[in-house]
Each structure stands twice: as structure tokens, then as C-alpha cells.
């Protein structure tokens, strides 16, 4: 399940936008300019089923996203979709993993409180007995210079 974001959850000033997500889902996004720095030394890990529905998250995922584990499990991974991310990035992600390959990229993620955090993500298909049974994404702390490049590049891809 994925719900509209609620004003009472948001910290600070925010903007509103209606996001069109995959499968005809519409989500009201409330987003602020508050950045949460990536925690040093940690990995943010999640696993989805073949449809991108979250099946597992680690503690760092819970802490950084601001959602509870219960809110995350069974939600589409687009629960973190930030309006500043170009759709082309996620198309590339899905095209790559559907081919059975690894995808790597820099992603700006949306927190439940409207803030954001940048990650360097690697997504791989979980192949068991020759079949893709799901996907795992492992995020690590990105370098500031790479993030600055994306801040310049992504608006040109929108």
C-alpha cells in the first residue's frame, strides 16, 4: 500500500506535487529542502519481489526513510520516489535488472517527513535455481562530488 503524504508528518516548509507511479497509482508528495546526511559506515538494504514490492528492509532503511517496518513491507518501492528524480533513471534500473544484470546509480530518496537523502545504490536480481525471484538493493554513502554532478544532470533528464 502507498498513501498520500500527510501535512502533519512533514517537518518544515514544503511543496506539493502529484506523482504518477507505475500501475496507475497517483500519490500526493509533500517535499522539503531538508537533507538527512547518509550515516557513515552503514549500508541501507532492501529486497523486493519481482514486482518491486518491498519484502525486507534492514534497520538503517527504517531509520533513513522515516517509515516503520510495518509501513514499508508490502509497499511498492516507489514509496521513496522523490519528484526530483528523472523517470529515465528508474526505467534504466528496471530494464537492467529485468535483463538479469546489476544496476548502479545515484538516487535522491524521499523521507516520510518530506526531507530527502542521497545514496549510491546497487540493485541486483536475486537468482535462485536459474530464476529471478526478487531484487536486492544495497545503498552506500555517495561522494559529494558525484551528488553535485547528479544535482546538475538530473533536471536535464526530466
Amino acid at each position: 500500500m502507498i498513501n498520500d503524504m500527510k501535512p502533519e508528518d512533514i517537518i518544515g516548509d514544503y511543496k506539493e506535487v502529484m506523482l504518477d507511479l507505475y500501475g496507475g497509482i497517483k500519490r500526493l508528495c509533500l517535499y522539503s529542502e531538508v537533507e538527512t546526511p547518509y550515516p557513515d559506515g552503514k549500508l541501507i538494504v532492501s529486497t523486493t519481489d519481482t514486482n518491486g514490492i518491498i519484502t525486507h528492509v534492514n534497520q538503517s532503511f527504517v531509520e533513513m526513510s522515516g517509515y516503520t517496518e510495518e509501513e514499508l513491507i508490502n509497499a511498492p518501492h516507489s514509496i521513496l520516489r522523490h519528484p526530483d528524480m528523472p523517470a529515465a533513471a528508474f526505467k534504466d534500473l528496471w530494464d537492467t535488472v529485468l535483463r538479469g544484470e546489476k544496476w548502479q546509480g545515484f538516487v535522491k530518496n524521499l523521507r516520510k517527513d518530506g526531507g530527502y537523502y542521497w545514496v549510491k545504490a546497487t540493485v541486483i536480481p536475486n537468482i535462485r535455481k536459474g530464476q529471478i525471484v526478487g531484487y536486492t538493493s544495497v545503498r552506500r554513502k555517495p561522494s559529494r562530488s558525484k551528488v553535485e554532478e547528479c544535482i546538475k544532470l538530473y533536471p536535464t533528464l526530466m
Partner: protein
Amino acid sequence: MTYRLTVSPDFTPDHLPGWYIFNTWLQKQLGEGIHLEMYNSFQAQHEAIAKDQIDLIYANPFDAAMLVREKGFLPLVKAHGLSDEAIIAVNAESPAKDVTDLAPGTRIAATEDPDVRLMGMIMLEPADLNSSNIDLHSCDTYVLVAKQLLRGEADAGIFLAEAFDDLSGMIKKQLKVLVHSQIGVIQHVLMVGPRLTDRRDELRHLLLAMPSDEKGQDVLKNLGFDLLINVEDEEMEFMIDLMDTLNT
């Protein structure tokens, strides 16, 4: 036939006798001859694995993918509460306060332990450092990594957290930790190879039952473990996938 047991060459030297005691215990329990072969490099161990000479291995997580996917090994058990974590440290006098204070060309001292080195390199990435723009100094032991920092021969070192903690107080006082990984799921696993997989359940049962008698407890103590716990196939696959994402 005699089977062969080996241990990831990054074992703590203090636990070397423990592995011999473990092997003696295991042979008695299983009623089979097992030879313990300690290789002094990952390369030598990899050659033995390639020649299908290994039947039981306490494996570095970095090698797990190859062992499972290419050599048909299956997981048995892991030590309870002992995940592999990495530390980046510098000389206490170093002006660096954060990894991002390290610049390209930095001299990094590290051992050959593949999982620790991988975790360490990931923690250097926020500074835009990678294998192509650092000057890597390979050391045989973590004490030698520390010595390079103390002598100013390297600017930063990659340590196994446990090995860093084991350094003498004298040495540790002269070092400063910049970052400590908190990954929690990367760990050495005892695995069984194709010639012994039909005895996997029996092996597992013996290993999990170790704390229930005095002899077993003693063997565990000599290895520095308090308890061995089961590793399911899916948990192993998850760790392999995770290592795979980090190795890119």
C-alpha cells in the same frame, strides 16, 4: 578416505591451536579422517579449492559466491554475534577528521583479507577514492598496518574491527578511527563441499550441539566462539548477493 578441512587464511593467530583441537574433536564425532590444512595465503587456498581438494572450509564471505555457485559448497554454521566489520584509522596526529579529508594519492595500508578490504574501499568512496587513485600498501598483518600508520609510511589503514580492538593499548592510543562499519550481516561461514554434503545434517547437528557438553564447550572456547548457529541456504544466498552488490 581422508577429508580436508581448511580455514580462511585471515584467522586470528591466537586461534590456530583452536582449529587443531576442533579438527580432532570433529574427526572423533564424525568417525572419519580429516586433515586440517592451513594455507598461508588466499591464493594458495584458492588453488586448492580449484583442484577440488577441500571438503570443509571456514570461509571468508568474499569466497562464498565462488564456493556455492562454482564448487557446490553448502553452508553449515556461523559463529554467534561475530560479524566482520571494517575500520578506517589514521595516525592520531593526522589532520584528517573524516574520511572525506583524505585526498587522491593517499597511501592506504591494508591486509589481503578480501572482505575487509572491500568494506574498507566502500568506506573510502565518499572521498572519491578508489583502487585507481590510491597508493595501496599490502601488509601481512594488522599490526603491520598499524605500524605503517605510526611510522608515517601510510596515511590511513583498513582494519578488521576485531583486529583493531586487539591491538595493544599503546598502539591504539596513537591511532584515530575515522569510520567504523556497521553492516552486521557479513560473516565467515563454515561450509561443506560436495564429497561430504550427504552428511550435512549430521554435521550440522554435531556442531549445533557443541555447547551441550563440556568437551564441545571447550572446543568452542579455543576457537573464540560462544555458540555456533545454523546458516540456511537462503541466508547464504542473501550474503552472496550482498557481497556481489558491494563488489561493483
